[in-house]
């Protein structure tokens, strides 16, 4: 007699969240967003605080 396995929605969410592709994507997204904030954002506070680093790093355009 076949038994149908019942995986609840919360468990499915946990499984998906903990899956390797999702974790890898989250990690790389976090790295990319951090890089954007430090080197590329136009937010004035951040621009002014890291202005020297931006001008002294290759591939970083400031203005």
């Amino acid at each position, binding site marked *: 007699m076949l038994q149908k396995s019942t995986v609840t929605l919360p468990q499915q969410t946990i499984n998906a969240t903990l899956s390797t592709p999702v974790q890898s994507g989250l990690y790389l997204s976090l790295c990319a967003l951090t890089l954007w904030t430090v*080197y590329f954002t136009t937010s004035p506070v951040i621009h002014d605080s890291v202005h020297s680093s931006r001008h002294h790093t290759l591939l970083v355009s400031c203005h």
Partner: protein
Amino acid sequence: MPKFNLTSLISSSGLMSLLAVGCLNAPAKSAPASVKLTTEPSLDRVVPYEAELETTQQPVKLTLQAIDSTGSPLTNVRMKAKLLAPAPTPWFTTDFPIVEGTQLFELQADAPTGQLQLQQMFPIRGNYQLQVTATPLGATGGETIQQNITITVPENSIKYQNFAILALLLTGAGLGGGWVIGAKRITKAGEVAPQPVRLLLSGASVVAIAALLYVNVSAEMAQSDMSALMSHPMGKAQETSTELNQKSIPAGTVTSQGIKLAITGDKSATVGKIASFQVKAVDAKTNKPVAGNVRIQTINSESEVKWVAFGYQGAIGSNGQLAWQSGLFDGSGHQVNVEFTPAAVGQQGTKVKVAQVVDVEGVAPPLYVRLISLGYMTGIVASAFLVAFWLRRRQDGRLN
């Protein structure tokens, strides 16, 4: 098969011999008239503008000398010089991408000694094109010289060093992340701890990503205020040089010592767009043009350490006027200082000064340029991540 013609062969050989002798005896052609460029510092020591320096960086002094075919300086020449910035390189951007492919200055002046002296701060690395035209004036006249001079400016070496350090850090982040995430998950019955820990870490990441997204999207959405955001803040002015800190120079029109000196032109400019200026010197009583020399300096006056973006030193036109165009590449307040010295005998000690303040609006670099660079950096992280991930899985596979 055609019959071999001995007569034709002899005739051809003789003709070729005559031509060879003629070429050897022909007088050497003299070099055409040209414009010679000398720079201070020398071209191999020219570097681009470096922001946030603690001391004043000097602009490059460009001296253009019109010479004739024998190498002697030409006199009484009308010279025109135009400097074009390097072409855009979005796949390998500079720190002033808005300036790429734009005009940095254009100026025409009469040069009694055939020499034009200019100063320019080179904003970025690359190949600049200096287009020069020299037209001999006077009765003898002469052909107009047109010349295109390429000035190659290398990148600041510090940028390569800093990027190497950044690349190492990104590689470390990628390797660390790949090693941790690549670990095989051994699900044990009843084990609860690892799951909540990972959920917590993932949750924290999601919150951080959401916060960063909000900050960055808000900044991009506020594009109407982008010009103000990309301009430099008004830092505390420092007395780096008396010459560059001349706040006492009057603006607009000045009448002094019998000379009326006026500066007109743009009072606001935008990075990447050319600004035009004119200066006029007339006799204060007769309103007739006054011949003489001008010294022009466009100074970045709002930065903490002031520096000269553009300069010219030489004769003003016979009509007492000089016009020039300048591309100001830094979003900050600038001041154009003009000092005029009449050429008339007995008046050479007279100096009249006038200034004009120019507000330069900064422009944010294009989004696609920034995304390209972000792509390179993220690519370094992703590559290291994949390597570490693969190594970890391989190691875990061997252990099992």
